[in-house]
């Protein structure tokens, strides 16, 4: 122990000493965790045997086989599509906004106020993309709930957190609209007006523009 702490400066040790103290959880969080644990016991989930895992060599072989099969299938499909598309669909005929699926555009335009509790993910989305969207949604839902509770300080923090992690996220438009609402709620009219102007500049065709404008009008 002495050896291991030898190189930590006194101020870092002091900070570490402060972090040693384990804070007591709020009673609601504690009750929730225990209730979930009891429910798991009652459902038998916690005592269900863990499924035995195949040896790693078998798993690697299976994974390699699967990758080969998928590669062949994708290659064949691409070849087939290429053959069909070549005579009828020249590249120049693509729309100027090509590459962005229509569903993506819809997702951007969808106001956060109508978002479902759990995200609906398209089959074509990659797992990381889906997880990213889910994380975005969770953060924005928390921010929206904070706004609904009129806890605007927390809402601003959550929105800043979202902006930090997902600067150009799919829900950036909704985030900026919520920021205007939170700033209005805090009585920071000047900041709210600036945020609204930024919003208009960034999303000139947003369906949320009128909502943002109403938010400013409703400011005290």
């Amino acid at each position: 122990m002495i050896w291991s702490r030898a190189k930590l400066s006194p101020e870092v040790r002091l900070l570490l000493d402060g972090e040693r103290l384990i804070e007591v959880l709020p009673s609601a969080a504690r009750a929730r965790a225990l209730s979930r644990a009891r429910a798991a016991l009652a459902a038998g989930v916690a005592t269900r045997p863990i499924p035995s895992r195949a040896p790693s060599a078998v798993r690697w072989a299976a994974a390699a086989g699967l990758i080969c099969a998928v590669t062949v299938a994708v290659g064949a499909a691409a070849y087939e599509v290429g053959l069909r598309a070549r005579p009828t669909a020249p590249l120049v005929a693509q729309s100027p906004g090509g590459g962005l699926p229509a569903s993506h555009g819809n997702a951007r335009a969808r106001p956060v106020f109508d978002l479902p509790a759990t995200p609906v993910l398209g089959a074509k989305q990659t797992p990381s993309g889906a997880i990213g969207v889910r994380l975005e949604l969770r953060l924005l839902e928390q921010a929206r709930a904070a706004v609904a509770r009129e806890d605007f300080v927390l809402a601003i923090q959550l929105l800043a957190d979202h902006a930090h992690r997902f600067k150009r996220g799919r829900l950036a438009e909704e985030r900026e609209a919520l920021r205007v609402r939170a700033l209005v709620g805090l009585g920071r009219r000047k900041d709210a007006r600036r945020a609204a102007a930024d919003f208009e500049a960034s999303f000139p065709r947003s369906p949320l523009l009128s909502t943002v404008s109403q938010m400013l009008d409703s400011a005290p």
Partner: protein
Amino acid sequence: MSLDDACLGAFQQELDYVHRSFQRLGVMSFEVDDLTQDLFVALRRSWSEYDPTRPLRPYLFGFAFRIAAAHKRKRRREVAVGIGSEVDDMGPGPDEQLQSKQGRAMVLAALARIPLPRRAVLVMHELDDVPVAEVASVLSIPPFTVYSRLRKARRELQAGIRRLLKKAGGE
């Protein structure tokens, strides 16, 4: 006392520690509840193998580390919830409570920049006072690796905190 009761009792007793361990391991605050539940399920499944003569916290931390690592692999990127913003948002204040909170946030922020395997060793040894041999046993790594990770992690922590202090002092 049945296995269920014993396991639930131990879980209840160390619930605060489990929560804090997940935070120290960089789990986002809104995900801690779900991972705590995962930990309970894993703990109950292995409870018959637990040796009650050994300390419980390192045993729990082993679960927390594996669950957090699997979770991190799943989402492929790690974010420490609110940690960065917490440090950024809190200006210096005379209140001791605020200072203590700020200090803790600073430690978490510095920890968040250390890769998970090294961070786990650092947290166990420096914060939970777990001896190196026990850390090696819980994380299933040789003691030499524990020492090596510890050395690097301490350097990273030191540098991280220095950077944060400098930033806080400059604002």
